[in-house]
């Protein structure tokens, strides 16, 4: 695309057409205090070498997750991404294609999405999955709005184990859809507390496993209570690798599963782009958000793929669309699918088992430190511990030694009164030496 700036004559003609004396007159509705009065103070242009030098100096101030012991999780997990994933997703047929608007000519993209959906449905134990959402939190919000459409009831109950940032995303998106959000207080093992809050006005309960404190649990009783009251159960999963070991949400009676897929095939990426997994029961499919890829045969009976149910999307249905999402996380979903395909069922189970084994070592070592209390009763690869000092201060202190010790709960929920609680995750990338370094530094800092 050529960039052709407007000439002064073009500008004058346009201003004359709208009856404005000059460009500043177009901004009179912006309060004076918010307007710039002079040019922005920016440095002049620089040569490529100088720019590279300056940016390299800025980049050197960062510390990458790969540079040392790393125990941060809380919804974004450092896992190994095989180099073949990056290699394959950078093929131009995949890399340059955006979400398909003229979909059927991109059969390769559609087939990859179809495989993705099949994998997500199998992983979550559900009947049908869509072609992905932006991330786990917006998938959860879409789930809440979907439950509202299905049940026509006003209230959604969010469990105290739900990631606080997911709760924020749900509240932000669902309140415009007219959903009343009931947030329960943060509790280490409080999923079942939602049962007492279910009433005839409840459209859904939103529970997470493993929850934000790492607590894994069987949610079957919650599903039964919700269904008995005519409400739906939405299960949130922020660590997709856990699905390799734990009972699937589908087996526990979930009606909708909203999960973050970053853990499989995707790097931390500074917090995004990520990929939301969204799965549900077949009977609800017409109320599901997003796009869905289907398998069919062409006029000559050959296997082919199409986007289906697009008639419910915004570009066709306008303001009556089921959701305002009109795209997906195509490339991240592809990375997920490629990694998942390479792992296979046995590989995923093995990966999950290694994660859990490392987390057990970490938990045992932490539990042996006087003054450190392990709070999470049943975990997959992440735990919460109570410290004798504010967790944020400890994380800062250990960062000084090149150790990223985890995520303080105060970072996620500043007003929860859990400033002394730290979340730590272990994955297949966590070595025994990493754990030893953490324990040594932690014991030293608390001594």
């Amino acid at each position, binding site marked *: 695309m050529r960039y052709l700036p407007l000439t002064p004559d073009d500008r004058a003609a346009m201003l004359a057409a709208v009856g404005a004396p000059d460009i500043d007159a177009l901004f009179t509705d912006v309060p004076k205090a918010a307007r710039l009065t002079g040019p922005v103070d920016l440095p002049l242009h620089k040569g490529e070498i100088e720019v590279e030098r300056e940016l390299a100096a800025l980049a050197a101030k960062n510390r990458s997750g790969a540079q040392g012991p790393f125990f941060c999780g809380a919804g974004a997990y450092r896992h190994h991404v095989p180099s073949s994933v990056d290699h394959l997703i950078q093929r131009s047929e995949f890399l340059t294609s955006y979400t398909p608007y003229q979909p059927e000519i991109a059969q390769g993209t559609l087939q990859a999405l179809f495989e993705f959906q099949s994998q997500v449905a199998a992983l979550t134990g559900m009947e049908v999955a869509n072609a992905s959402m932006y991330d786990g939190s917006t998938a959860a919000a879409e789930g809440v709005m979907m439950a509202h459409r299905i049940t026509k009831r006003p209230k959604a109950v969010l469990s105290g184990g739900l990631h606080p940032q997911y709760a924020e995303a749900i509240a932000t998106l669902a309140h415009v859809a007219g959903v009343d959000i009931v947030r329960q207080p943060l509790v280490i093992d409080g999923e079942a507390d939602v049962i007492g809050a279910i009433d005839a006005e409840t459209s859904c309960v939103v529970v997470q496993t493993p929850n934000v404190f790492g607590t894994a649990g069987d949610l079957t009783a919650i599903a039964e209570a919700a269904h008995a009251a005519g409400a739906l159960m939405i299960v949130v999963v922020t660590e997709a690798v856990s699905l390799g070991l734990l009972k699937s949400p589908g087996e526990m009676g979930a009606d909708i599963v909203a999960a973050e897929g970053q853990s499989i095939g995707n790097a931390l990426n500074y917090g995004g782009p990520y990929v939301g997994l969204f799965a549900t029961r077949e009977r609800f499919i017409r109320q599901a958000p997003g796009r869905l890829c289907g398998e069919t045969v062409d006029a000559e009976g050959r296997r082919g793929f199409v986007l289906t149910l697009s*008639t*419910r999307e915004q570009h066709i249905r306008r303001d*009556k669309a089921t959701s305002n999402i009109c795209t997906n996380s195509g490339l991240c979903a592809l990375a997920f699918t490629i990694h998942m395909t390479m792992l296979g069922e046995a590989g995923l189970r093995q990966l999950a088992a290694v994660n859990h084994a490392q987390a057990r070592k970490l938990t045992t070592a932490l539990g042996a430190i006087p003054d450190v209390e392990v709070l999470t009763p049943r975990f997959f690869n992440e735990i919460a511990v109570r410290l004798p000092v504010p967790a944020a201060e400890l994380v800062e202190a250990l960062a000084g030694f090149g150790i990223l010790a985890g995520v303080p709960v105060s970072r996620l929920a500043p007003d929860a009164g859990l400033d002394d609680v730290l979340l730590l995750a272990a994955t297949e990338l966590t070595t025994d030496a990493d754990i030893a370094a953490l324990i040594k530094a932690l014991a030293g800092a608390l001594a």
Partner: protein
Amino acid sequence: MRFTKDHEWVEVAGDVATIGVTAYAAEQLGDVVFVELPPVGKAVKVGDNLAVVESVKAASDVYAPIAGEVVAVNDELTGTPETVNAEPESGGWFAKLKLSDPGAVDALMDRDAYEAFLGTL
């Protein structure tokens, strides 16, 4: 049978009106794959959303051409939505409304007027 510019038809018997979409509408929609019907008991005013008809290329609203209360819906369409294409003005009916004012139907177009209207499209 009476018609609207939105291509719905209404047939009144006593104080109950049967409502569907016209043959012209069914042809324009293409293959109908799904019909979303209103709950029985729902009260509708003229122009309210009565149903959604979904084809392979579009999902369109069906508006209430006349005011009343839904007393029956054509559940057959849930399993066989293609009936809308095969028999749009008979077996492919959507809903039956109990009318508060059966006389209101006279304000709608008769077949000649509807055919003339189609000629202008």
